[in-house]
């Protein structure tokens, strides 16, 4: 009892072949789209790798690039088969490869599922990398003369301006690090000396933030220094002043950016899986319809197409039995080899 049988006559077969050919070419375009999204994601990660300590994992974009290329190749082959299948001579060329091809498509769909799951799950890794990277970024902000870190200030300033954020969790992170280099501090000044001495680690800490934290939408000129001291500025209260500097932390801002990107890519990969399954089903129907033609010489005869030759349960038990047989055969071969080794 075949699973989901459908009767086909010539016009229906022709329509199925044409529709399937267009579907395969659409899948090729989707494959190209996944490839380009993988490249885009890789470039975005590289652009901001300084914020992630150059430590970010490129697994997801590399996998997307690979999946895109595989999708293009597999679907082009499928399209070629569909194009040739209505011509019996050409179809006999492709017939023996079809079973292998469908198994390959199955495997590819599994890989796509894995990629989609990774897209969703790797967001945690990105979050942790961002937290660590930003913490180090703020720490090394002042080291513009240390080779390897001299562009950290610029990168962090540009990130805070572009993503409209300040600090790691919020702007108070800047109060806990010395972000002004000792080269620009007048060590002979009493105030500076007092501040440095009052700190256990000898750091020059201030309740100020860099200029890149300033919000252009504020109605008053930016207040960067002495933020916690309300009396240092006229008509200023830190608790009510929300527009002065950016209130959001850069970790949250960068994470929401990458998270939305990864979620959309994951959704697209899920849609591609469904598309691939539709392709496989169509090809199975088409190949069975062509194989079961009652009279091969007469192209106008009727035929039947199905998804599985027997029902789902029976196919499953057959598959298990086959795997068991395969297992037994390999065991027998090994036992035979051991026996011959023992006897010699």
């Amino acid at each position, binding site marked *: 009892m075949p699973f989901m049988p459908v009767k086909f006559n010539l016009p229906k077969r022709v329509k199925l072949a044409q529709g399937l050919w267009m579907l395969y070419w659409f899948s090729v375009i989707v494959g190209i789209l996944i490839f380009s999204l993988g490249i885009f994601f890789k470039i975005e990660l590289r652009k901001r790798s300084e914020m992630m300590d150059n430590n970010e994992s490129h697994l997801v974009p590399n996998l997307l690039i690979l999946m895109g290329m595989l999708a293009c190749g597999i679907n082009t082959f499928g399209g070629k088969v569909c194009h040739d299948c209505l011509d019996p001579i050409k179809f006999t060329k492709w017939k023996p490869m079809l079973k292998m091809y469908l198994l390959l498509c199955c495997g590819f769909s599994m890989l796509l599922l894995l990629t989609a799951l990774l897209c969703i799950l790797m967001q945690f890794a990105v979050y942790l990398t961002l937290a660590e990277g930003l913490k180090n970024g703020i720490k090394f902000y002042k080291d*513009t*003369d240390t080779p390897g870190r*001299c562009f950290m*200030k*610029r990168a962090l*300033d*540009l990130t805070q*301006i572009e993503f409209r954020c300040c600090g790691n969790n919020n702007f108070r992170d800047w109060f806990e690090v010395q*972000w*002004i*280099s000792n*080269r*620009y*501090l*007048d060590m002979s*000044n009493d105030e500076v000396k007092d501040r440095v001495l009052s700190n256990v680690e000898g750091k020059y800490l201030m309740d100020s933030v*860099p*200029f*890149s934290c*300033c919000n*252009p*939408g*504020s*109605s*008053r*000129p*930016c207040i*960067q220094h002495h933020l916690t001291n309300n009396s240092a500025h*006229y*008509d200023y209260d830190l608790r009510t002043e929300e527009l002065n500097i950016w209130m959001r932390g850069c970790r949250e801002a960068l994470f929401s950016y990458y998270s939305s990107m990864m979620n959309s890519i994951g959704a697209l990969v899920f849609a591609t899986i469904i598309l691939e399954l539709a392709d496989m089903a169509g090809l199975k129907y088409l190949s069975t319809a062509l194989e079961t033609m009652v009279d091969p010489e007469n192209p106008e005869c009727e035929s039947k197409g199905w998804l599985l030759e027997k029902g789902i349960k029976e196919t499953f038990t057959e598959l298990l039995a086959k795997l068991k047989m395969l297992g037994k055969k390999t065991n027998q071969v090994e036992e035979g080899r051991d026996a011959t080794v023992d006897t010699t």
Partner: protein
Amino acid sequence: MAVGKVTFTKAEREKLAEVLWLLNWISVVAGMILFGLGLFLKIEIQKWQEVMSDQEILYAPHILITMGLAACGINFLGGKICLDCADTNKFLHWKLVMMPYIICTFFFTSCVLAGALMCYSIRSQLEESLFLGLRNAMRYYKDTDTPGRCYLKRTLDLLQIQFHCCGNTGYRDWFQVQWISDRYLDMTSSAVVDRLRSNVQGKYLVDSVPFSCCSTLSPRPCIQQQISNSSAHFSFDQQSQQLNLWKRGCRQTLLDHYTSIMQSVGLIVLLIWLFELLVLTGVRYLQTAMENVLRLGDPDSESDGWILENSLAETAHSNFNIIKNLGKCYQVDDDLNINIPAATAQQEVPSQQNQIPAAS
């Protein structure tokens, strides 16, 4: 003595009609490109419209948008006409429309050229407009509570951050305007009152700049206050001063930005104009060739096509006479000696009689 005379066989005429049909459809795409360019230019100008004092710059994108839509329509009609022109019977439907269509397309093509030239000539007008616009923007920077000006601060800050520029000509322009609102000045403080009194117009002027002038390339934290007093800051040497703020003025930066956009847009519009001129020439040749075929009477014979029937001087002279006579026939003339309206009517009737036997 015809201008640009070329002889066409029947096959050549049909080929010309086919090629022109294709070219007209490509022109429709070119028209859409023109429309897109106009839209892009309009959006780019509107982004920073607040720092431009006059809005005449918007004429160029509006012309491009109109021309783009007109191109789509004209070339769509042209494609239809050219498709029908290969056959002499179908050509008769369009015969009377062809001449007005060609004149219309000629005027449209000149408008496209005008649009392209406008893109190139806009630089001086833009410079003046930017100078005044930026000066006003800096004056009203502090007026964040005045309706109509409350977003100027944000616009100017974003402009300086994005284009890496400061002030009109340079950062010193900020020393000459009061950019801190009185609302945020402590009038009870003696320092503030002194500064206000020392200025003739009672403005609070400082040698400081807004935060958006700070350069991200500077290795040291930004120094915004007391910029002209290098001893007020530790180790504020020449090199630190160079890297501290953005050096360029916003007027020059914006001018360069818009000039480069306009030049690229102008170049593309010029190329589209050349293409439209080519299509127009082809349609004119097809029209004259088909008319001559009808005049000769044999649809399979060879015929001549030209751009102008007589030389340029003669055509101009005859057109001028037509316009003069057109003017005269609208005059209510009491002079019985002049008999021109009757004479021209008599001339028209015989020429129509001549054409009808030729067509049959």
